[in-house]
């Protein structure tokens, strides 16, 4: 039986290959995801390990609470006098203090901050006390280690920006821009490269001055004497530490350093795996459909087997073995295809400016191999179950009776009712997940995922009922454009509604998801723009070049002095600890009242200037959650450990698109008293005369010394704030395109099988005068009609899902993505045309005589 099944697969090579592609792509995405994330993880591991080279223990500043991000500006520094005390410890062989920052901006010849990609990667800056120290992970490519007022930069930045040893470069960290001499070019001794980041190294006093950390240190790297263990070293150091410092073994420190990126990598992995899952789900439809068609075409063969004494179980087994072989083969190919995809994903992320560190692809880990193979094979098996069970119902008499078809399923008549119920049940489960209050994130995701799955299967099963009416409408243009061929195409697509429906369903899934994404995105953009338009009464916004990094307060001060500027309102942000939890707080200055117009539930615009040293305002939901009203007191703990009481002086009602403020906002003055190096996130500017060329020029002039700051009009501000979001959107589209490609192959497959089945008929049509062109056109139109059916059902479902989510989620408004929907329809037509190329050519090549004599 096994041999028989495998032989069968081999004898249908083309069909097998076309079916396998569906799985290859899905499994490829899964293995590609692992390769990608394993590679990134490996690269980060090396970066963190390299960075702690030579250390046995690391002393660092200590926040009062664990901040979720490695927010360097919030982590307290400690006094450098600690270094000499550490050096005196008996177990210490060597110790070296350092300061570091994530925002050491190197400035290029055009006065712009050097950033690669979206600017998400850090601009690393740190002190190199001694180039030859064992703690230094860098080595010189050229020049010398930095002395006073000198800087070394990394090789990549140097070569990309044509910088050389001996040149001057402007650098800005905290405070004004300084001009330094490039004393050398460095790289990691291990040859490691680090994504889109830039590196600037200074000698310690220069670094302390640049980072505004005079007399302070961020870290001390400690090497133990040969006989002293890391744990012992830590034990020796701990008692001499001040309250604002802590010590960890190097291994602990590396783990701590990596924890951020690890959770990022974990997220990226689940995110990408989801798309692999979607592609496989679509692949399952394609496989189920191809197998069904193949089995229908093999009715006679299966019946003969039954006549010769095969039991139902044997028939079932042969189909399952076939699927298993197909699954294994496709999954193995997919596994390797994943390597290619991983490369492609790196490229894709690079392209949108999300540059990830890459130290070479990490070839498939065992987890990757096992997960990818298992999932691929399982999906294939599951998809083959229904066709396999159908195959067992082929009666032996079908071997002798011409035109015998499969007996209708026992509950055939109940099928569409069942399918409809399933779809409705799916939507209900989905709605439950979305609307039911008090569900945890996991539960919400479960119900939404489960509901969507059920809905897709239900709609797919039910859609055979929709094929006839839809084909009539969507096929109408074909009959007008395609003439007789178009007419035949439309009738062909309606001839076997079930088959057309299954084929279209695969495409439906992809289109549902892209429509969902497009609608949500357009909702996000619409509500954000609306919020900015509603709130923002100023004329300009000052942000970092990358739109989200903090900018020095001096920049805002300079802008305030520019001619024409009447008011500047600043927003700072950072993490605080409040009501037992970390939260993002914002801090504002009085000028805010004139550039941002909030809707107040309690209090008024005057709150901005009345905050003082202990005033705070909160948003409506936060107030409700913690039962806050005017006059309530809130205890806020800052990263430096001090806790202050704040009095609520206002409660605002945020628009759906959000505000520049976090749940808790205090005055900038109160903030600056607690944060070592405060910076602005945004500054909003009001001018006399509004947005004019003169005002723009004045602001630009004022900001000239702050290359990382830019002034934008409201319109520009909106578009640059949503810029990165749009890039992410594009990534989503590309990832979803994978499942659309899978469904494209599904259409190819169905058409090839259909052409094969209609060999006689096509021969007959050719014999009575149909030209090759007309044959091709007929197949092409059938393909387009199928795609359009999938697209219209998919787009409708996508809009439905989006609407459900928009009703539930506060920050979304419904905004119909007209352009995108039109694009999707055009894309569906393109998919149809592409899918038809190969089958149409095969059909046109059929020799009319041979076709009729066939069998």
């Amino acid at each position, binding site marked *: *039986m096994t041999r*028989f099944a495998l*032989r*069968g697969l*081999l*004898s249908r090579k083309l069909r097998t290959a076309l079916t396998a592609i569906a799985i290859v792509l899905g499994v490829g995405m899964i293995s590609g995801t692992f390769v990608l994330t394993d590679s990134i993880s490996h690269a980060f591991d090396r970066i963190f390990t390299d960075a702690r080279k030579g250390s046995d223990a690391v002393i660092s500043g200590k926040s009062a609470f664990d901040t979720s991000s490695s927010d360097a500006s919030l982590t307290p520094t400690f006094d450098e006098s600690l270094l000499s005390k550490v050096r005196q410890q008996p177990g210490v062989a060597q110790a070296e203090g350092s300061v570091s920052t994530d925002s050491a901006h190197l400035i290029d010849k055009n006065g712009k901050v050097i950033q690669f990609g979206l600017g998400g990667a850090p601009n690393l800056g740190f002190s190199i006390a001694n180039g030859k120290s064992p703690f230094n992970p860098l080595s010189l490519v050229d020049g010398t280690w930095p002395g006073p007022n000198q800087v070394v930069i990394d090789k990549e930045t140097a070569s990309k920006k044509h910088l050389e040893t001996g040149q001057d470069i402007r650098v800005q960290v905290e405070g004004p821009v300084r001009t330094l001499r490039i004393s050398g070019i460095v790289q990691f001794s291990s040859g490691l490269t680090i994504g889109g980041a830039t590196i600037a190294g200074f000698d310690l006093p220069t670094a302390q001055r640049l980072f505004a950390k005079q007399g302070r240190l961020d870290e001390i790297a400690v090497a133990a004497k040969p006989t002293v263990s890391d744990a012992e070293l830590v034990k020796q150091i701990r008692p001499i530490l001040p309250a604002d410092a802590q010590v960890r073994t190097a291994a602990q420190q590396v783990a701590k350093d990596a924890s951020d990126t690890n959770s990022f990598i974990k997220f990226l992995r689940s995110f990408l795996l989801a798309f692999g899952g979607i592609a496989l789900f679509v692949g399952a439809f394609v496989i189920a459909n191809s197998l069904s068609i193949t089995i229908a075409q093999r009715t*006679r*063969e299966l019946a*003969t*087997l*039954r*006549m*010769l*004494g*095969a*039991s*139902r179980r*044997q028939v079932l087994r042969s189909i399952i073995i076939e699927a298993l072989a197909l699954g294994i083969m496709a999954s193995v190919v997919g596994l390797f295809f994943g390597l290619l995809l991983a490369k492609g994903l790196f490229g894709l992320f690079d392209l949108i400016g999300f540059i990830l560190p890459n130290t070479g692809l990490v070839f498939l880990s065992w987890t990757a191999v096992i997960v990818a193979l298992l999932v691929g094979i399982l999906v294939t098996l599951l998809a083959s179950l229904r066709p396999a069970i159908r195959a067992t119902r082929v*009666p*032996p*008499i079908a*071997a*002798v009776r011409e035109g015998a078809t499969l007996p209708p399923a026992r509950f055939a008549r109940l099928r569409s009712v069942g399918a409809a119920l399933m779809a409705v049940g799916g939507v209900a489960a989905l709605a439950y997940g979305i609307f039911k209050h008090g569900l945890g994130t996991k539960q919400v995701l479960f119900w939404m995922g489960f509901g969507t799955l059920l809905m897709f299967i239900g709609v797919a099963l039910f859609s055979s009922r929709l094929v006839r009416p839809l084909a009539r409408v969507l096929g109408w243009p074909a009959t007008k454009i395609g003439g007789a061929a178009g007419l035949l195409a439309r009738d062909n697509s309606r001839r076997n509604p079930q088959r057309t429906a299954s084929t279209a369903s695969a495409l439906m899934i992809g289109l549902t998801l892209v429509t969902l994404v497009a609608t949500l995105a357009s909702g996000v953009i619409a509500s954000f723009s609306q919020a900015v338009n509603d709130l923002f009464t100023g004329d300009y916004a000052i942000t970092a070049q990358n739109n989200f990094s903090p900018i020095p307060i001096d920049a805002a001060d300079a802008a305030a002095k520019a001619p024409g500027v009447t008011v500047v309102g600043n927003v700072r942000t950072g993490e605080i600890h409040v009501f037992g939890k970390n939260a993002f707080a914002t801090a504002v200055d009085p000028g805010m009242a004139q550039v941002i117009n909030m809707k107040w539930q309690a209090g008024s615009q005057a709150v901005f200037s009345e905050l003082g040293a202990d005033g705070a305002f909160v948003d409506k939901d936060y107030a409700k959650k913690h039962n806050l009203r005017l006059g309530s007191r809130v205890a806020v703990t800052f990263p430096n450990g001090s806790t202050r009481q704040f009095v609520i002086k206002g409660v605002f009602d945020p628009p759906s698109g959000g505000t520049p403020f976090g749940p808790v906002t205090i005055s900038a003055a109160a903030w600056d008293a607690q944060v070592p190096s405060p910076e602005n996130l945004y500054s909003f500017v009001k001018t006399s005369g509004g947005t004019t060329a003169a005002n723009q020029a004045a602001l630009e002039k004022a900001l000239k010394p702050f290359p990382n700051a830019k002034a934008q009009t409201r319109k520009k501000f909106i578009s640059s704030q949503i810029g990165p979001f749009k890039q992410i959107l594009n990534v989503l589209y590309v990832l979803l395109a994978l499942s659309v490609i899978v469904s494209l192959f599904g259409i190819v497959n169905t058409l090839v099988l259909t052409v094969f089945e209609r060999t006689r008929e096509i021969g007959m049509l050719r014999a009575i005068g149909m030209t090759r062109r007309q044959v091709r056109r007929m197949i092409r139109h059938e393909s387009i009609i199928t795609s359009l059916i999938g697209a219209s059902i998919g787009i409708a479902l996508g809009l439905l899902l989006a609407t459900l989510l928009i009703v539930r989620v506060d920050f979304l408004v419904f905004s119909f993505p007209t352009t995108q929907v039109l694009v999707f329809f055009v894309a569906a037509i393109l998919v149809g045309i592409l899918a038809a190329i190969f089958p149409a050519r095969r059909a046109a090549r059929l020799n009319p005589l041979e076709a009729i004599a066939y069998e």
Partner: protein
Amino acid sequence: MNQDGKAPVVVARDVTRRYGQGQTCVDALRGVSVDIESGRLTAVMGPSGSGKSTLMHILAGLDKPTAGSVEVAGQEITRLNDGDLTKLRREHIGFVFQFFNLLPMLTAEENITLPLTLAGEKGDDAWVKEVVGDVGLSDRLTHRPAELSGGQQQRVAIARALVSKPTVLFADEPTGNLDSTTGGEILQLIRESVDNRGQTTVMVTHDPRAASTADRILFLDDGLIVREMHGASSHEVITTMEEIGV
């Protein structure tokens, strides 16, 4: 027991078969009773649409009668479930089709031994060789059906039907798709297997010459057995056909 003292291996009683229902229903069989004796070649003749194939299908357990009973090798088969029917097919029934029904991806040899493979039997090599030799295919065993002529394909089909030593072999127009010379050879093969091995065989045919090789001929018309002949010459067969207006 009939006059020759041979035991019947297939016994049908009052078999009727109605297709469809209401106005458009067709009575393909309207009460057929017949005993098929062991070790003999029985031919079934009759005009097109008279119910020959329907009768064969019911006797072979492929189709169920609307009423009446069928016994094969002493076992009532009209109420068997699918599993028992599979067993029946493996042990008692062989079938030769008009369109050969070979599996295209298997070689001639694999096609021939397929019933044994399906039944999970090792198969007696000598016996397989003998059957293959009888049908004259010894040098064609590794060929695929597509590489064989129609006559050769039907030989493979006959060998496949014989290999499991069925209690009764059914052949529905086995020569219907072959030219007369090739058809003659196939008929001879069938006759030899009856003579040499006592293979009970029932064969539907339209060809009087083919029918004349049979030990017994049943004439079917409009769903009823209207005449029976024993050891008739082809001339006698033609006369009878004319008599009953076939």
